[in-house]
Protein backbone atom coordinates (compact mmCIF):
# COMPACT_ATOMS: atom_id res chain seq x y z
CA UNK A 1 0.00 0.00 0.00
CA UNK A 2 1.39 3.40 -0.99
CA UNK A 3 0.46 6.58 0.90
CA UNK A 4 1.13 10.15 -0.17
CA UNK A 5 1.27 12.70 2.67
CA UNK A 6 1.18 16.47 2.37
CA UNK A 7 2.15 18.89 5.12
CA UNK A 8 1.51 22.64 4.85
CA UNK A 9 0.39 23.75 8.28
CA UNK A 10 2.69 26.70 8.84
CA UNK A 11 6.21 27.34 7.58
CA UNK A 12 6.91 24.28 5.55
CA UNK A 13 5.48 22.68 2.45
CA UNK A 14 6.39 19.04 2.10
CA UNK A 15 5.28 15.84 0.45
CA UNK A 16 6.31 12.33 1.41
CA UNK A 17 5.53 8.96 -0.10
CA UNK A 18 5.46 5.90 2.10
CA UNK A 19 5.15 2.27 1.10
CA UNK A 20 3.29 0.31 3.79
CA UNK A 21 4.19 1.65 7.22
CA UNK A 22 7.95 1.76 7.10
CA UNK A 23 9.40 2.17 3.64
CA UNK A 24 10.14 5.81 2.81
CA UNK A 25 10.07 6.20 -0.96
CA UNK A 26 10.56 9.95 -0.87
CA UNK A 27 10.29 12.93 1.45
CA UNK A 28 10.61 16.31 -0.23
CA UNK A 29 10.81 19.35 2.02
CA UNK A 30 10.58 22.71 0.32
CA UNK A 31 13.12 24.77 2.27
CA UNK A 32 15.71 22.08 1.65
CA UNK A 33 14.98 22.00 -2.09
CA UNK A 34 14.27 25.56 -2.97
CA UNK A 35 17.74 26.83 -3.72
CA UNK A 36 18.88 24.03 -5.96
CA UNK A 37 15.64 23.08 -7.64
CA UNK A 38 13.65 26.22 -8.24
CA UNK A 39 16.44 28.70 -8.70
CA UNK A 40 14.96 31.38 -6.51
CA UNK A 41 16.33 32.58 -3.24
CA UNK A 42 13.53 32.42 -0.74
CA UNK A 43 14.42 33.75 2.67
CA UNK A 44 13.70 31.38 5.52
CA UNK A 45 11.43 33.90 7.08
CA UNK A 46 9.16 34.18 4.04
CA UNK A 47 8.54 30.48 3.97
CA UNK A 48 4.76 30.63 4.03
CA UNK A 49 5.02 31.86 0.48
CA UNK A 50 6.28 28.39 -0.21
CA UNK A 51 2.72 27.18 -0.48
CA UNK A 52 2.93 28.42 -4.02
CA UNK A 53 5.32 25.58 -4.72
CA UNK A 54 3.03 22.79 -3.62
CA UNK A 55 2.56 21.43 -7.16
CA UNK A 56 6.31 21.19 -7.77
CA UNK A 57 6.89 19.60 -4.38
CA UNK A 58 4.31 16.86 -4.92
CA UNK A 59 5.57 16.24 -8.44
CA UNK A 60 9.14 15.92 -7.18
CA UNK A 61 8.07 13.54 -4.41
CA UNK A 62 6.39 11.31 -7.00
CA UNK A 63 9.44 11.44 -9.27
CA UNK A 64 11.87 10.67 -6.45
CA UNK A 65 9.70 7.75 -5.35
CA UNK A 66 9.45 6.55 -8.95
CA UNK A 67 5.70 6.21 -8.71
CA UNK A 68 2.79 7.84 -10.52
CA UNK A 69 -0.45 9.14 -9.01
CA UNK A 70 -2.16 5.95 -10.26
CA UNK A 71 0.06 3.92 -7.92
CA UNK A 72 -1.03 5.89 -4.85
CA UNK A 73 -3.59 4.14 -2.63
CA UNK A 74 -4.20 6.82 -0.03
CA UNK A 75 -3.66 10.55 0.46
CA UNK A 76 -3.08 12.13 3.88
CA UNK A 77 -3.28 15.85 4.52
CA UNK A 78 -2.67 17.91 7.67
CA UNK A 79 -5.88 19.71 8.72
CA UNK A 80 -4.55 21.29 11.93
CA UNK A 81 -3.27 22.73 14.10
CA UNK A 82 -1.84 25.48 11.94
CA UNK A 83 -2.46 28.66 10.02
CA UNK A 84 -5.84 28.63 8.32
CA UNK A 85 -4.51 29.90 4.98
CA UNK A 86 -1.58 27.49 4.89
CA UNK A 87 -3.81 24.55 5.84
CA UNK A 88 -6.33 25.48 3.16
CA UNK A 89 -3.71 25.44 0.41
CA UNK A 90 -2.72 21.90 1.29
CA UNK A 91 -6.27 20.67 1.76
CA UNK A 92 -7.49 22.15 -1.54
CA UNK A 93 -4.57 20.55 -3.34
CA UNK A 94 -5.09 17.16 -1.69
CA UNK A 95 -8.81 17.25 -2.49
CA UNK A 96 -8.05 18.06 -6.10
CA UNK A 97 -5.66 15.13 -6.35
CA UNK A 98 -8.15 12.82 -4.67
CA UNK A 99 -11.00 13.79 -6.97
CA UNK A 100 -8.98 13.69 -10.11
CA UNK A 101 -7.36 10.32 -9.43
CA UNK A 102 -10.26 8.86 -7.40
CA UNK A 103 -8.24 8.18 -4.26
CA UNK A 104 -9.34 8.29 -0.64
CA UNK A 105 -8.06 11.33 1.25
CA UNK A 106 -7.99 11.60 5.03
CA UNK A 107 -7.16 14.32 7.53
CA UNK A 108 -4.11 14.09 9.77
CA UNK A 109 -3.40 15.89 13.03
CA UNK A 110 0.01 17.58 12.78
CA UNK A 111 0.92 16.59 16.36
CA UNK A 112 0.07 12.95 15.75
CA UNK A 113 2.24 13.14 12.63
CA UNK A 114 5.21 14.26 14.72
CA UNK A 115 4.65 11.45 17.20
CA UNK A 116 4.29 8.76 14.55
CA UNK A 117 7.35 9.93 12.58
CA UNK A 118 9.37 7.84 15.03
CA UNK A 119 7.45 4.69 14.19
CA UNK A 120 8.57 4.78 10.55
CA UNK A 121 12.13 3.89 11.49
CA UNK A 122 11.74 2.01 14.78
CA UNK A 123 9.64 -0.69 16.34
CA UNK A 124 8.64 1.04 19.53
CA UNK A 125 7.15 -0.78 22.48
CA UNK A 126 4.06 0.83 23.96
CA UNK A 127 2.98 2.55 26.11
CA UNK A 128 5.38 5.39 25.50
CA UNK A 129 5.88 8.82 27.01
CA UNK A 130 6.33 11.32 24.18
CA UNK A 131 7.97 14.71 24.59
CA UNK A 132 6.98 16.69 21.52
CA UNK A 133 8.98 19.91 21.36
CA UNK A 134 9.16 22.47 18.57
CA UNK A 135 8.96 26.18 17.97
CA UNK A 136 5.21 26.22 18.30
CA UNK A 137 4.47 23.20 20.48
CA UNK A 138 5.56 21.67 23.76
CA UNK A 139 3.43 18.66 24.63
CA UNK A 140 4.08 15.82 27.04
CA UNK A 141 1.94 12.92 25.92
CA UNK A 142 1.24 9.43 27.13
CA UNK A 143 0.75 7.24 24.07
CA UNK A 144 -1.08 4.10 25.13
CA UNK A 145 -1.48 2.80 21.61
CA UNK A 146 -1.87 4.12 18.07
CA UNK A 147 -4.64 6.69 18.20
CA UNK A 148 -4.82 6.56 21.99
CA UNK A 149 -3.15 9.60 23.48
CA UNK A 150 -3.38 11.42 26.74
CA UNK A 151 -1.85 14.87 27.09
CA UNK A 152 -0.08 14.97 30.45
CA UNK A 153 1.28 18.48 30.17
CA UNK A 154 1.92 21.34 27.78
CA UNK A 155 3.39 24.80 27.84
CA UNK A 156 1.32 27.52 29.43
CA UNK A 157 3.18 30.29 27.60
CA UNK A 158 6.18 29.94 25.26
CA UNK A 159 7.16 26.70 23.53
CA UNK A 160 10.61 25.25 24.24
CA UNK A 161 11.85 25.97 20.72
CA UNK A 162 10.60 29.51 21.06
CA UNK A 163 12.66 29.99 24.23
CA UNK A 164 15.76 29.10 22.19
CA UNK A 165 14.79 31.57 19.50
CA UNK A 166 13.94 34.42 21.80
CA UNK A 167 17.18 34.12 23.71
CA UNK A 168 19.01 34.06 20.37
CA UNK A 169 17.16 37.24 19.49
CA UNK A 170 18.30 38.92 22.71
CA UNK A 171 21.90 37.79 22.17
CA UNK A 172 21.75 39.07 18.60
CA UNK A 173 22.41 35.66 17.06
CA UNK A 174 19.67 35.80 14.42
CA UNK A 175 17.05 33.34 13.26
CA UNK A 176 16.56 30.41 13.57
CA UNK A 177 18.07 30.51 17.01
CA UNK A 178 18.08 26.85 18.08
CA UNK A 179 21.10 25.66 16.09
CA UNK A 180 22.97 28.91 16.84
CA UNK A 181 22.49 28.58 20.60
CA UNK A 182 23.58 24.95 20.43
CA UNK A 183 26.76 25.83 18.56
CA UNK A 184 27.64 28.75 20.82
CA UNK A 185 26.86 26.71 23.95
CA UNK A 186 29.71 24.30 23.18
CA UNK A 187 32.19 26.90 24.40
CA UNK A 188 30.14 28.17 27.32
CA UNK A 189 29.82 27.49 31.03
CA UNK A 190 26.36 26.02 31.56
CA UNK A 191 26.37 26.95 35.24
CA UNK A 192 26.96 30.65 34.58
CA UNK A 193 23.29 31.56 34.90
CA UNK A 194 21.16 29.41 37.15
CA UNK A 195 17.47 29.39 36.37
CA UNK A 196 14.86 27.35 38.19
CA UNK A 197 12.51 24.59 37.05
CA UNK A 198 9.25 26.42 36.41
CA UNK A 199 5.95 25.29 37.95
CA UNK A 200 7.56 22.31 39.64
CA UNK A 201 4.36 20.76 40.93
CA UNK A 202 2.66 20.40 37.57
CA UNK A 203 3.44 18.50 34.40
CA UNK A 204 2.85 21.69 32.45
CA UNK A 205 5.78 23.78 31.27
CA UNK A 206 6.54 27.48 31.42
CA UNK A 207 9.40 28.91 29.40
CA UNK A 208 8.53 32.60 29.24
CA UNK A 209 10.51 33.39 32.40
CA UNK A 210 13.71 32.36 30.62
CA UNK A 211 13.63 35.15 28.07
CA UNK A 212 12.73 37.70 30.74
CA UNK A 213 15.59 36.56 32.97
CA UNK A 214 18.07 36.65 30.10
CA UNK A 215 16.75 39.98 28.87
CA UNK A 216 17.18 41.54 32.27
CA UNK A 217 20.57 39.99 32.90
CA UNK A 218 21.92 40.92 29.48
CA UNK A 219 20.71 44.48 29.77
CA UNK A 220 22.78 45.03 32.89
CA UNK A 221 26.02 43.74 31.34
CA UNK A 222 28.63 46.04 29.86
CA UNK A 223 29.41 45.66 26.16
CA UNK A 224 32.61 43.88 27.11
CA UNK A 225 30.90 41.44 29.48
CA UNK A 226 28.25 40.69 26.89
CA UNK A 227 30.93 39.57 24.49
CA UNK A 228 32.61 37.61 27.24
CA UNK A 229 29.52 35.78 28.49
CA UNK A 230 27.42 35.24 25.38
CA UNK A 231 28.46 31.59 25.13
CA UNK A 232 27.90 31.12 28.87
CA UNK A 233 24.37 32.45 28.55
CA UNK A 234 23.70 30.18 25.56
CA UNK A 235 24.99 27.15 27.47
CA UNK A 236 23.03 28.06 30.60
CA UNK A 237 19.81 28.48 28.64
CA UNK A 238 20.24 25.21 26.80
CA UNK A 239 20.80 23.47 30.12
CA UNK A 240 17.79 25.19 31.68
CA UNK A 241 15.50 24.15 28.83
CA UNK A 242 16.80 20.57 28.90
CA UNK A 243 16.44 20.41 32.70
CA UNK A 244 12.90 21.76 32.58
CA UNK A 245 11.90 19.18 29.98
CA UNK A 246 13.59 16.29 31.73
CA UNK A 247 12.22 17.17 35.15
CA UNK A 248 8.66 16.80 33.90
CA UNK A 249 9.49 13.79 31.76
CA UNK A 250 10.97 12.07 34.78
CA UNK A 251 7.78 12.75 36.73
CA UNK A 252 5.63 11.46 33.88
CA UNK A 253 7.74 8.34 33.47
CA UNK A 254 7.52 7.74 37.21
CA UNK A 255 3.74 7.66 37.22
CA UNK A 256 3.05 6.21 33.76
CA UNK A 257 5.70 3.46 33.79
CA UNK A 258 6.13 3.38 30.00
CA UNK A 259 8.18 0.93 27.95
CA UNK A 260 9.64 3.72 25.83
CA UNK A 261 10.49 7.40 25.83
CA UNK A 262 10.16 9.35 22.58
CA UNK A 263 11.53 12.79 21.80
CA UNK A 264 10.02 14.42 18.72
CA UNK A 265 9.59 17.77 16.94
CA UNK A 266 12.17 20.30 15.79
CA UNK A 267 13.91 20.64 19.17
CA UNK A 268 14.67 16.90 19.02
CA UNK A 269 17.40 17.94 16.58
CA UNK A 270 19.33 19.49 19.49
CA UNK A 271 22.01 16.95 20.34
CA UNK A 272 22.58 18.23 23.89
CA UNK A 273 18.92 17.59 24.72
CA UNK A 274 18.94 14.31 22.82
CA UNK A 275 21.98 13.11 24.79
CA UNK A 276 20.45 14.07 28.12
CA UNK A 277 17.26 12.19 27.26
CA UNK A 278 19.25 9.19 26.11
CA UNK A 279 21.32 9.13 29.28
CA UNK A 280 18.23 9.41 31.46
CA UNK A 281 16.48 6.60 29.57
CA UNK A 282 19.39 4.22 29.86
CA UNK A 283 19.69 4.93 33.59
CA UNK A 284 16.10 3.93 34.22
CA UNK A 285 16.04 1.12 31.67
CA UNK A 286 13.49 2.58 29.25
CA UNK A 287 14.00 2.43 25.47
CA UNK A 288 14.74 5.84 23.97
CA UNK A 289 13.83 7.05 20.49
CA UNK A 290 14.36 10.33 18.65
CA UNK A 291 13.68 10.66 14.93
CA UNK A 292 16.40 11.02 12.32
CA UNK A 293 17.11 14.72 11.75
CA UNK A 294 15.10 14.92 8.53
CA UNK A 295 12.00 13.73 10.37
CA UNK A 296 12.34 16.21 13.26
CA UNK A 297 11.04 19.26 11.43
CA UNK A 298 7.68 19.44 9.67
CA UNK A 299 7.59 16.98 6.80
CA UNK A 300 5.23 15.09 4.53
CA UNK A 301 6.31 11.57 5.38
CA UNK A 302 5.07 11.87 8.97
CA UNK A 303 1.67 12.82 7.57
CA UNK A 304 1.74 9.80 5.27
CA UNK A 305 2.61 7.59 8.25
CA UNK A 306 -0.23 8.95 10.40
CA UNK A 307 -2.66 8.62 7.48
CA UNK A 308 -1.59 5.02 6.87
CA UNK A 309 -1.90 3.98 10.52
CA UNK A 310 -5.32 5.57 10.92
CA UNK A 311 -6.55 4.11 7.64
CA UNK A 312 -5.58 0.51 8.36
CA UNK A 313 -6.95 0.77 11.90
CA UNK A 314 -10.29 2.20 10.76
CA UNK A 315 -9.79 5.41 12.72
CA UNK A 316 -9.44 7.73 9.73
CA UNK A 317 -10.98 11.21 9.73
CA UNK A 318 -12.61 12.02 6.40
CA UNK A 319 -13.73 15.51 7.38
CA UNK A 320 -11.15 17.71 5.73
CA UNK A 321 -12.11 21.06 7.21
CA UNK A 322 -9.07 23.03 8.39
CA UNK A 323 -9.02 23.41 12.17
CA UNK A 324 -6.39 26.00 13.23
CA UNK A 325 -6.60 25.05 16.92
CA UNK A 326 -7.04 21.31 16.42
CA UNK A 327 -6.34 19.31 19.57
CA UNK A 328 -5.11 15.77 19.85
CA UNK A 329 -8.11 13.54 20.48
CA UNK A 330 -7.76 12.06 23.95
CA UNK A 331 -8.89 8.52 24.54
Amino acid at each position, binding site marked *: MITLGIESS*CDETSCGILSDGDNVLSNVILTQEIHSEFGGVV*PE*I*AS*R*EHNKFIYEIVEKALNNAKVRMDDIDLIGITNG*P*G*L*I*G*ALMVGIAFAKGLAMNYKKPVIAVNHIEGHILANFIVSNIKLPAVVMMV*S*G*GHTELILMKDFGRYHVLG*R*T*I*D*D*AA*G*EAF*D*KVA*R*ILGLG*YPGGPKIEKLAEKGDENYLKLPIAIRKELNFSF*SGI*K*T*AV*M*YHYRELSENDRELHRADIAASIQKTIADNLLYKVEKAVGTSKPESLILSGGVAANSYIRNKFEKFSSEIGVDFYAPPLKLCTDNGIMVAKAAYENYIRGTATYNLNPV*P*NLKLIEV
Partner: protein
Amino acid sequence: MKYYSNSVEKTYQIAAEIMKRYKSLRVFLLKGELGGGKTTFVKGFLKSLGCNENVTSPTFTIVQEYDCNEKIYHIDLYRLSDIHEAIDIGIDEYLDSGSYVFIEWPEIIEKEIDEAYIIINFKLQDINNRIIEVIEIGKQ
Protein backbone atom coordinates in the same frame (compact mmCIF):
# COMPACT_ATOMS: atom_id res chain seq x y z
CA MET B 1 -2.99 56.16 30.65
CA LYS B 2 -0.27 54.25 32.50
CA TYR B 3 -0.60 51.13 34.62
CA TYR B 4 2.05 49.53 36.78
CA SER B 5 2.35 45.80 37.28
CA ASN B 6 4.59 43.88 39.64
CA SER B 7 3.07 40.43 39.14
CA VAL B 8 1.27 38.18 36.70
CA GLU B 9 -1.94 38.60 38.69
CA LYS B 10 -1.63 42.38 38.51
CA THR B 11 -1.19 42.17 34.73
CA TYR B 12 -4.33 40.02 34.54
CA GLN B 13 -6.20 42.65 36.52
CA ILE B 14 -4.92 45.48 34.32
CA ALA B 15 -5.93 43.53 31.21
CA ALA B 16 -9.46 43.12 32.52
CA GLU B 17 -9.63 46.81 33.37
CA ILE B 18 -8.32 48.06 30.01
CA MET B 19 -10.54 45.71 28.06
CA LYS B 20 -13.57 46.87 30.03
CA ARG B 21 -12.74 50.50 29.40
CA TYR B 22 -12.43 49.93 25.65
CA LYS B 23 -15.22 47.40 25.32
CA SER B 24 -16.45 48.78 22.01
CA LEU B 25 -13.07 48.17 20.35
CA ARG B 26 -11.99 44.90 18.78
CA VAL B 27 -8.45 45.60 17.55
CA PHE B 28 -5.56 45.95 19.98
CA LEU B 29 -1.94 46.42 19.00
CA LEU B 30 0.45 45.11 21.62
CA LYS B 31 3.89 46.68 21.44
CA GLY B 32 7.03 46.42 23.48
CA GLU B 33 10.11 44.38 24.10
CA LEU B 34 10.41 40.66 24.80
CA GLY B 35 9.22 39.71 28.23
CA GLY B 36 7.01 42.77 28.53
CA GLY B 37 3.94 40.72 29.32
CA LYS B 38 2.01 40.79 26.03
CA THR B 39 0.94 37.14 26.12
CA THR B 40 0.17 37.46 29.85
CA PHE B 41 -2.11 40.38 29.00
CA VAL B 42 -4.10 38.29 26.51
CA LYS B 43 -4.24 35.46 29.04
CA GLY B 44 -5.65 37.95 31.57
CA PHE B 45 -8.32 39.14 29.16
CA LEU B 46 -9.49 35.58 28.43
CA LYS B 47 -9.59 34.86 32.15
CA SER B 48 -11.74 37.96 32.68
CA LEU B 49 -14.18 36.50 30.14
CA GLY B 50 -14.29 33.32 32.20
CA CYS B 51 -12.64 31.47 29.34
CA ASN B 52 -10.44 28.54 30.22
CA GLU B 53 -8.43 28.22 27.02
CA ASN B 54 -4.69 27.78 27.46
CA VAL B 55 -3.23 30.98 26.01
CA THR B 56 0.25 30.44 24.58
CA SER B 57 2.64 32.58 22.59
CA PRO B 58 1.78 32.99 18.89
CA THR B 59 5.36 33.76 17.83
CA PHE B 60 5.81 30.49 15.96
CA THR B 61 2.24 29.61 15.12
CA ILE B 62 1.68 33.28 14.03
CA VAL B 63 -2.02 33.05 14.85
CA GLN B 64 -3.52 31.50 17.97
CA GLU B 65 -7.26 31.17 17.80
CA TYR B 66 -9.43 30.79 20.89
CA ASP B 67 -13.04 29.74 21.19
CA CYS B 68 -14.57 31.61 24.08
CA ASN B 69 -18.15 32.87 23.73
CA GLU B 70 -16.78 34.49 20.64
CA LYS B 71 -13.60 33.99 18.66
CA ILE B 72 -10.43 35.65 19.85
CA TYR B 73 -7.39 35.92 17.60
CA HIS B 74 -3.92 36.45 19.06
CA ILE B 75 -1.46 37.24 16.29
CA ASP B 76 2.30 37.82 16.24
CA LEU B 77 3.75 39.32 13.06
CA TYR B 78 7.37 39.15 14.22
CA ARG B 79 8.35 36.37 11.82
CA LEU B 80 6.76 38.05 8.81
CA SER B 81 8.87 40.33 6.67
CA ASP B 82 6.33 42.67 5.09
CA ILE B 83 2.68 43.53 4.63
CA HIS B 84 2.31 41.12 1.70
CA GLU B 85 3.05 38.22 3.98
CA ALA B 86 0.56 39.57 6.49
CA ILE B 87 -2.09 39.71 3.78
CA ASP B 88 -1.05 36.23 2.74
CA ILE B 89 -1.86 34.84 6.19
CA GLY B 90 -5.24 36.58 6.03
CA ILE B 91 -4.72 39.60 8.29
CA ASP B 92 -7.59 41.43 6.55
CA GLU B 93 -10.02 38.66 7.33
CA TYR B 94 -9.02 38.65 10.99
CA LEU B 95 -9.36 42.44 11.24
CA ASP B 96 -12.72 42.40 9.41
CA SER B 97 -14.10 39.52 11.43
CA GLY B 98 -15.52 41.69 14.21
CA SER B 99 -13.84 39.37 16.70
CA TYR B 100 -11.25 40.43 19.23
CA VAL B 101 -7.86 40.69 17.52
CA PHE B 102 -4.63 41.20 19.46
CA ILE B 103 -1.58 41.86 17.31
CA GLU B 104 2.00 41.73 18.53
CA TRP B 105 4.75 43.35 16.41
CA PRO B 106 2.09 45.13 14.32
CA GLU B 107 4.45 47.69 12.75
CA ILE B 108 4.37 46.19 9.24
CA ILE B 109 0.60 46.67 8.95
CA GLU B 110 -0.12 49.48 11.36
CA LYS B 111 -0.60 52.26 8.81
CA GLU B 112 -3.06 50.18 6.82
CA ILE B 113 -5.48 49.30 9.59
CA ASP B 114 -8.94 50.73 8.89
CA GLU B 115 -10.61 49.55 12.06
CA ALA B 116 -10.53 51.61 15.25
CA TYR B 117 -7.79 50.43 17.55
CA ILE B 118 -5.63 51.31 20.51
CA ILE B 119 -1.97 50.62 21.15
CA ILE B 120 -0.95 48.99 24.39
CA ASN B 121 2.73 49.44 25.18
CA PHE B 122 4.63 47.08 27.45
CA LYS B 123 7.86 48.07 29.11
CA LEU B 124 10.06 45.94 31.31
CA GLN B 125 11.44 48.16 34.05
CA ASP B 126 13.22 45.44 35.92
CA ILE B 127 12.61 41.76 36.35
CA ASN B 128 9.42 42.25 38.38
CA ASN B 129 8.12 45.63 37.31
CA ARG B 130 6.35 46.48 34.09
CA ILE B 131 4.69 49.59 32.78
CA ILE B 132 1.62 49.06 30.63
CA GLU B 133 0.57 52.14 28.74
CA VAL B 134 -2.51 52.71 26.60
CA ILE B 135 -2.15 55.01 23.63
CA GLU B 136 -5.33 56.06 21.85
CA ILE B 137 -4.54 56.91 18.27
CA GLY B 138 -6.99 54.73 16.36
CA LYS B 139 -9.24 56.18 13.70
CA GLN B 140 -12.41 56.40 15.77
